[in-house]
């Protein structure tokens, strides 16, 4: 879609104007880090933030997500629970936009996920370009996520006095009609192009080869000794998948009220790295070995989804590597496999 622009001085009025109608979520500082939180005013937003601890997926797939309640009185009845809160995710970097864009495809495919899709259809995404590599282990450039290709309504790029605004959807167009936005003229287009060129050259490649080769490299790695070597650095804690923008696996649990027998079925984030993730009735565990679990995660990130959806399930944000206590970093593993 088209390119528009908004002057910087008009951005705060635009965002504050959304707050009465939408729950506006944006990055805010948390001590020396950042997190996506509901904000009460544009003033709370950290525009120059580095990668948040958790990606914004938590507003589309909450850590605890109630699916339905069951009431046994007067014959059992199920009441599905859907979160229809109108929400704006503001300030999402291109890596995280890519993460959401992939979840959109995965969770709409086949037996689709109505709870995710309901939240998603009530959520607008206003992205914001980062200006440089946020961490020394971010490899977004290698994973092709330096600029968004879908999954956003508006996407802002800082041009100094104003922002260039890519409009991704009709809902984005409607947002831009609220005032402050104008069509990009030749000058904006020039500056926008220059900003993109500058961004591209400002990000280093951190994988030593073209990632187009990754699915094949991973296919050949199936019996590599690297997986067993990694075992010695893994705790089965699932920190890596918890902080991943594209991980969406969940466990389904029931909670009941002993007085009335009313119950709630909810889901909570699960992780393929936990020991009992693949345990089934009868006590079998078809991924009981830690090395099998590690390999499974890496192959999902760099092979399976690429083959199925045409895009990697890794956006190169580097969160997993930074949250791993013994520094298992997807980027390093990808590099070592080629080595």
């Amino acid at each position: 879609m088209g390119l528009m622009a908004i002057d910087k001085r008009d951005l705060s009025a635009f965002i504050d104007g959304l707050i009465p109608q939408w729950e506006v979520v944006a990055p805010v500082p948390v001590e020396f880090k950042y997190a996506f939180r509901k904000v009460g005013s544009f003033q709370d937003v950290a525009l120059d933030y580095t990668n948040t601890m958790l990606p914004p997926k938590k507003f589309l797939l909450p850590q605890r997500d109630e699916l339905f309640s069951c009431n046994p009185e007067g014959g059992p009845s199920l009441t599905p629970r859907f979160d229809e809160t109108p929400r704006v995710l503001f300030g999402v970097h291109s890596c995280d936009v890519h993460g959401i864009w992939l979840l959109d495809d995965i969770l709409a495919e086949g037996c689709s996920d109505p709870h995710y899709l309901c939240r998603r259809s009530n959520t607008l995404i206003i992205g914001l370009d980062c200006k440089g590599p946020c961490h020394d282990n971010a490899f977004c450039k290698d994973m092709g996520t330096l600029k968004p290709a879908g999954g956003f309504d508006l996407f802002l790029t800082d041009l100094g006095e104003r922002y260039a605004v890519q409009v991704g959807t009709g809902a984005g167009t409607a947002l831009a009609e609220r005032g402050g936005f104008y069509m990009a003229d030749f000058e904006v287009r020039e500056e926008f192009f220059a900003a993109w060129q500058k961004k591209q050259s400002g990000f280093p490649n951190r994988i030593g080869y073209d990632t187009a080769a990754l699915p094949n490299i991973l296919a050949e790695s199936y019996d590599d000794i690297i997986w067993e070597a990694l075992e010695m650095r893994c705790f089965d804690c699932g920190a890596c998948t918890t902080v991943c923008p594209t991980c969406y696996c969940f466990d389904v649990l029931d909670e009941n009220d002993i007085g009335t027998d009313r119950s709630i079925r909810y889901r909570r984030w699960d992780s393929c790295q936990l020991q009992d993730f693949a345990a089934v009735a009868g006590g079998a565990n078809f991924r009981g070995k830690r090395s099998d679990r590690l390999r499974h995660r890496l192959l999902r990130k760099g092979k399976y989804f690429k083959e199925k959806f045409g895009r990697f399930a890794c956006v190169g944000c580097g969160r997993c590597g930074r949250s791993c206590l013994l520094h298992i970093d997807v980027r390093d593993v990808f590099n070592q496999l080629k080595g």
Partner: protein
Amino acid sequence: MTVRAGVFAFTSCEGCSLITLEVEDRLLEILGRVEFVNFREAIDDKSDDYDIAFIDGAITREHEVGELMKIRERAAILVAMGACAVQGGLYFLKEYHEPGETLAYVYGDKAGQFDTMPVRPVSQYVKVDHSLYGCPIDKREFVEVVTALLSGRRPNIPDYPVCNECRMSENICVFERGLACMGPVTRAGCGAICPSRHVGCFGCRGMVDKPALDQHRAVLTERGLTEEEITARYRMFNGHWGSAHEKP
């Protein structure tokens, strides 16, 4: 249907017993289905007729063994409640001193009037059907176990490390604050209560079934802890785990 339950305290501070009464908004709901018939912190009755027994405390004296076995015979379901009952708790620290040394330190010339024996968790003597972990137990988990038992389902008790809940809560890792933490090997379920308050996990909930001990040791060593400091961390709440297994 109501069930009859007893809460029995052995060597402990009885704090876990009291937690069962602290469930506030759920207490009346529980009392509608659970009739406590033997619970010295709450009632005067001392009935021997009960279906569920909650055991609070470690076993440290001869007479406790007999009492515990009698309770086991009477109860259809026995729940070990809290770090002392499940792991021996802080009392297990006594086992790292010479026999009689702590007794003499605490009771001086009256030490001879007290009997003591090696500290052991409840499971050393009787079959434990369910465990409630922590020092003290988590009151939501108490409600979960009671609810699950009354509903005939398995309680949802995690077998993954505290790190999982900690990351989910979007906490800054306490290792990044320069603190040491038992979270990577400790059973979750507390909601990462200590790291959420900028304190390293002490490991009170005991370890996950298969803890990554070598990896944890590597992290602690990398963060500058000495062997002595690491051992002290492990002994605090997980001493018995060490004596029952090969690793400390």
